[in-house]
């Protein structure tokens, strides 16, 4: 597959590994946070760690929208499906995420709620057209990559005068989350692998103020394993050379300005929320999107009375600290015991971008051995 296979080439991987090995300073260590769960996934899926020296360490960041969604929002979505009887259209990613009382979209569907997996907001629109007698709510979730598609769906619904389509909006912004990590006292990171697909929309320029203010190197990195390796090489060089810049490894789709049309759609459809709750990060100001009041007809939060509720995360789940990059899955005593992908206690164990899921799936033996040793 063009633009995919080339970036998984073993000879090029060796070339990059050789360069990294050569340039890494054995006398120091390098801790790079990959902001995106997509990078976490690629690192584990391809065993990237095996190709870099052991003093280069990956720290997993909060860039997994499923992981950072507070349980309360998921419970709200379940309420829409169960109490308001809507057709809830959602990405497959959300189906297994645990809400309060170990409920999830999958168990709710099993219990009779009408929850449909879709691949695209276009499919949710089609559901609304095909079920004129039912209300269809699309669970909008994701960073800036996904927000324009949700926005387009709302504009299309308005153009087609669909009266039974709305969006339960949970879209969040990348830079405020990144700032939250950077601003944390005592941050021990030597650099960042910057978001890849988010950056196709917001552009490399979006990170320059942050990098300027907090002085950490950042390389916008593609999601293929060679992209990760090359970005590591670029970060190692910045560190070695004392530079603190935004560099763009993923130049084949990321430009300085991003996608202007997509940014216009976001602005047209969404306003900034004053503040929004992130799992792990807490309340982050101006970090999320809401549907503009003039489009309230398409806003599920405006259309349906969603009850106040107390959603309580599993107490000893370390997701929050893991999402901030200050703990690892092995630091959670539930990992691999009470918490497995089959009986997840936190979203990080479910999302394909979640750190706990990655450690469980690809490194369970080692992680559990480390846990035993630590006891």
């Amino acid at each position: 597959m063009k633009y995919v296979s080339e970036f998984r080439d073993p000879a090029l991987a060796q070339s990059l590994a050789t360069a990294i090995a050569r340039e890494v300073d054995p006398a120091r260590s390098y801790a790079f946070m990959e902001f995106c769960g997509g990078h976490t996934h690629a690192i584990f899926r391809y065993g990237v760690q095996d190709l870099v020296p052991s003093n280069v360490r990956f720290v997993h960041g909060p860039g997994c929208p499923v992981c950072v969604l507070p349980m309360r929002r998921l419970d709200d979505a379940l309420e829409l499906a169960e109490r308001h009887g809507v057709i809830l259209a959602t990405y497959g990613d959300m189906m297994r995420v645990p809400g309060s009382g170990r409920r999830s979209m999958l168990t709710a569907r099993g219990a009779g709620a009408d929850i449909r997996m879709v691949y695209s907001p276009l499919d949710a629109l089609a559901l609304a057209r095909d079920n004129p007698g039912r209300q269809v709510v699309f669970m909008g979730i994701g960073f800036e990559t996904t927000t324009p598609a949700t926005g387009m769906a709302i504009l299309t619904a308005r153009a087609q005068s669909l009266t039974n389509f709305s969006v339960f909006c949970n879209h969040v912004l990348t830079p405020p989350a990144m700032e939250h990590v950077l601003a944390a006292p005592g941050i021990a990171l030597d650099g960042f692998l910057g978001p890849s697909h988010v950056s196709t929309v917001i552009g490399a320029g979006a990170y320059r103020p942050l990098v300027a203010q907090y002085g950490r190197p950042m390389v916008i990195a593609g999601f293929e394993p060679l992209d990760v390796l090359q970005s590591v090489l670029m970060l190692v060089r910045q560190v070695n050379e004392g530079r603190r810049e935004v560099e763009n490894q993923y130049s084949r789709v990321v430009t300085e300005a991003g996608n202007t049309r997509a940014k216009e759609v976001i602005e047209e459809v969404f306003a900034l929320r004053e503040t929004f709750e992130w799992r792990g990060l807490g309340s982050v100001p101006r970090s999320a999107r809401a549907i503009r009041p003039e489009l309230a007809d398409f806003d599920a939060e405006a259309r349906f009375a969603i009850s106040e509720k107390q959603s309580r995360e599993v107490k000893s789940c370390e997701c929050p600290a893991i999402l901030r990059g200050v703990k690892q899955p092995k630091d959670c005593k539930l990992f691999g015991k009470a918490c497995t992908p089959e009986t997840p206690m936190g979203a990080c164990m479910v999302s394909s971008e979640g750190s706990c899921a990655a450690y469980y799936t690809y490194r369970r033996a080692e992680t559990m051995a480390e846990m035993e040793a630590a006891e």
Partner: protein
Amino acid sequence: MSTILRPGAAIEMAHGGGGMATTRLIREIFARHFANPILDQGHDAARLTLPHGRMVMSTDAHVISPLEFPGGDIGSLAVHGTINDVAMGGAVPVALSAAFIIEEGLPLETLDRIAASMGAAARKAGVPIVTGDTKVVERGAADGLFITTTGIGIIPEGIEIAPERIAPDMAILLSGTLGDHGVAILSQRQGLAFGTTIESDSAALHRMVGDMLAAVPSIACLRDPTRGGLSATLNELAEAAGVSMVLKEAAIPVRPEVAGACELLGLDPIHIANEGKLICICPEEQAEAVLDIMRAHPEGREAARIGTVGASMPPGTPGLLRMETLIGGMRVVDWLAGEQLPRIC
């Protein structure tokens, strides 16, 4: 003579009531398409004479949607699936039973087409459907048609296929490309539908298995990587045998269209179902001989060695199955906690 196959005719509850309508449905559709001397005796139970010996019995319920898909249908699939399970036990399949659960409203034409395909698959495989059953449930109580097939077979002298015989350093062979069946089905699914020329690999593998076992009786284990795909099947075997295994990602054959669909939907071909593939684990030194036999069959043309059995491991060891990735790293290949869901992140 009047026939129940009138244009537009559909399954009604009466067809499952046990009266005349049931009898006519069985006669005019199933008995017609499945005709063979044992079934034709027309008893509720089949009678057959078997040689003394070790027997294999296997059953599978088939619940696929859509009922007809590129490369097959639920009928041929139900025949192939159970023949394969019997063959994976090292046995020569000799007879099948078939039980139908039909949703009221299923067009009789569809049922007839599927029964015809099933009969053709059984004849082509040389394994007769010797007895059956038909039930009809109300609309909304089933999804069109479910078919449960059960197969029996006889294990030839000297053959012993079992996970316990898997030993360190044996070769792990795969008879062809991964994921064709699962992707062909996905391409038809509402909400996901995409265009592809991929067809299900649904096929009966017992003749190929027969040749493999005849030439290399020391084959340790056979298994068809259906539901749960390669990962579930090999994890199960590794656990049962108490060994580790290492695969080589670059050696696993995958069609470009299957790779494309997996990229699109965030799936991994090693978790996707196959219906005409087998995994064979045999002594290292026999690997090439077995591969040659497989490749001589149309079902095994793209057979490849995909990995090697590692050391014996104590029971309960996690991460028994590992894979050298495309770029030369190592990863564990876990089986999935649940079904693989399409994802966007």
